[in-house]
């Protein structure tokens, strides 16, 4: 395949995770809203807001429907995005601990707070884990629908977090709750890919692809792999567009992506036929094999230009291949130490062999996602039955430290310093504002730019001065 020379393969990654909350064991009722408010109490006292940017560059807020939500800072690699997402998990667990002691005053010492990194509650309300990918503006949305959506629909073979649904166990949490494939709304209709155009960057060059159909993952490997594989598919699409071609993966547009999503979620062998828009059928495994082959060729050609990061790029292909081969051989158990749905299914089978009733099975299905009081995921890691990629120390650092290779570095350092002064300040993804002796406003329109410019240095200088007055240590 001809390569267009000089293409910029870099990408910005971000993950927004909505968490579910509940409380058990209390003397009296406590709604999700009350749990969420208790989690945010200390933050509201300090910041007078439930929408906060942190010194690691992330955004922490209370979303519609009483969901605590964590949006990672801009990351330049899937690994950086994973580490930031894990920092978010730990922040939520810490807030849950605070909420637990606040609520125990009213509800007694038995009250236990639960925070679920999953995507559906007991009544079938669904909430999301949204992936953001900075995408070159030249890619037409029709190509996203025709060439990317079939990948996203079938990647649940290894990205699904598993769910005990009304009609049995299925691979995905989200499959039953999605509507159309590509749309600009999220709360009414629930599309798989959202095109609401807020690039938080130069709109002439980029759009921000907002992928909504994915599950929240506990497996570190899968969070990383789903970003890495999606990045490779997007990279290939971008190259083809810039080279004036249009269908790197062949005619793979699905006739009904929603129906396909639900079928794939119910077939752990990946073989059920999916209707193609142009006629005929294809299986999830066939589609994934087609994407894998194309991405292998892409990596062979562009090597370390893909932005995934050597040597990790080799690992992407190996893991992805291992998943497809295991399912092709009907051996999902082989994936149980890194694919969430397989890990969960192994636990459910084990419980069943011990005579567990359906209620206990449902309890286990939820416990796997409970980052505050759950036991099963941690037990799997402890007994060597779930692989991890990131050690605790790095996660601890990411609670305070922003990614160093995007504008998140500038935002995070600003927040860290501003927090120690009595000055008025504010920020969002693209802007930092400080009201000191002068009003400073620094625009951060390029997400890749992570070096201080003159305006930024002047603002940080004033903060340093003020801190010296405020806290003369």
């Amino acid at each position, binding site marked *: 395949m001809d390569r267009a020379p000089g293409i910029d393969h870099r990408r910005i990654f971000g993950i927004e995770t*909505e968490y*579910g*909350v*509940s*409380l*058990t*064991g209390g003397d009296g009722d406590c*709604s*999700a809203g009350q749990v969420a408010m208790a989690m945010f109490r200390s933050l509201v006292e300090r910041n007078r807001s439930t929408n906060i940017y942190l010194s690691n560059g992330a955004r922490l807020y209370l*979303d*519609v*429907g*009483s*969901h605590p*939500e964590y949006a990672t800072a801009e990351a330049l690699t899937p690994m950086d995005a994973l580490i930031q997402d894990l920092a978010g998990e730990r922040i939520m667990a810490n807030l849950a601990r605070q909420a637990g002691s606040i609520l125990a005053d009213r509800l007694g010492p038995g009250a*236990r707070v*639960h925070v679920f990194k999953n995507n559906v*509650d*007991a*009544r079938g*309300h*669904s*909430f999301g884990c949204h992936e953001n990918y900075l995408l070159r503006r030249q890619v037409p949305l029709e190509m996203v629908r025709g060439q990317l959506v079939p990948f996203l629909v079938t990647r649940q073979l290894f990205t699904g977090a598993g769910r*005990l*649904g*009304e*009609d*049995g*166990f299925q691979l995905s949490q989200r499959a039953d709750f999605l509507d159309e494939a590509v749309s600009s709304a999220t*709360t009414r209709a629930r599309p798989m890919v959202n095109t609401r155009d807020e690039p938080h960057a130069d709109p002439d060059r980029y759009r921000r692809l907002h992928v*909504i159909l994915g599950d929240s993952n506990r497996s570190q490997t899968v969070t990383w792999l789903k970003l890495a594989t999606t990045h490779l598919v997007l990279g290939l699409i971008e190259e083809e567009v810039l080279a004036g071609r249009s269908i790197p993966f062949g005619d793979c547009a699905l006739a009904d992506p929603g129906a396909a999503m639900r079928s794939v979620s119910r077939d*752990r062998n990946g073989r059920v036929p999916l209707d193609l828009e142009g006629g005929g059928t294809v299986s999830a495994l066939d589609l994934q094999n087609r994407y894998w082959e194309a991405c292998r060729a892409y990596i062979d050609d562009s090597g370390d230009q893909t932005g995934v990061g050597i040597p990790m790029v080799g690992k992407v292909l190996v893991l992805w291949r291992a998943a497809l081969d295991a399912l092709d051989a*009907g*051996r*999902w*158990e082989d994936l149980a130490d890194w694919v969430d749905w397989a890990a969960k*299914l*192994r*636990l*459910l*089978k*084990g*419980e*069943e062999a*011990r005579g567990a*009733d*359906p*209620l*206990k099975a*449902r*309890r286990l299905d*939820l*416990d796997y996602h409970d980052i505050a009081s*759950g036991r*099963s995921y941690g*037990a799997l890691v*402890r*007994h*060597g*039955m779930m692989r991890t990629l990131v050690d605790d120390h790095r996660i601890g650092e990411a609670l305070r430290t922003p990614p160093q290779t995007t504008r998140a570095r500038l935002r995070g350092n600003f927040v860290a310093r501003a927090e120690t002064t009595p000055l008025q300040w504010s920020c969002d993804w693209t802007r930092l504002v400080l009201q000191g002796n002068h009003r400073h406003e620094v625009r951060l329109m390029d997400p890749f730019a992570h070096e201080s410019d003159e305006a930024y240095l002047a603002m940080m200088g004033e903060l340093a001065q003020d801190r010296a007055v405020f806290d003369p240590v």
Partner: protein
Amino acid sequence: MPQEFSRLSSSARSGQEQTEEDTGTAGASARARTQDTSLDSVLDDIESTLEDNAEEYVKGFVQKGGE
């Protein structure tokens, strides 16, 4: 509800048969035994948690939706 769990069990069982057909070497069965022991340890670890407030835990998790 019992139905959905029995459906889980029938498909799970067919998966297990396939594993036994495909392997059969001494190394593989030793590995399988280690895995079984670890799985037992995990299930022992979570036993009391799963029995704790099971009904409230499962039915009391209600959000209003989001996104």
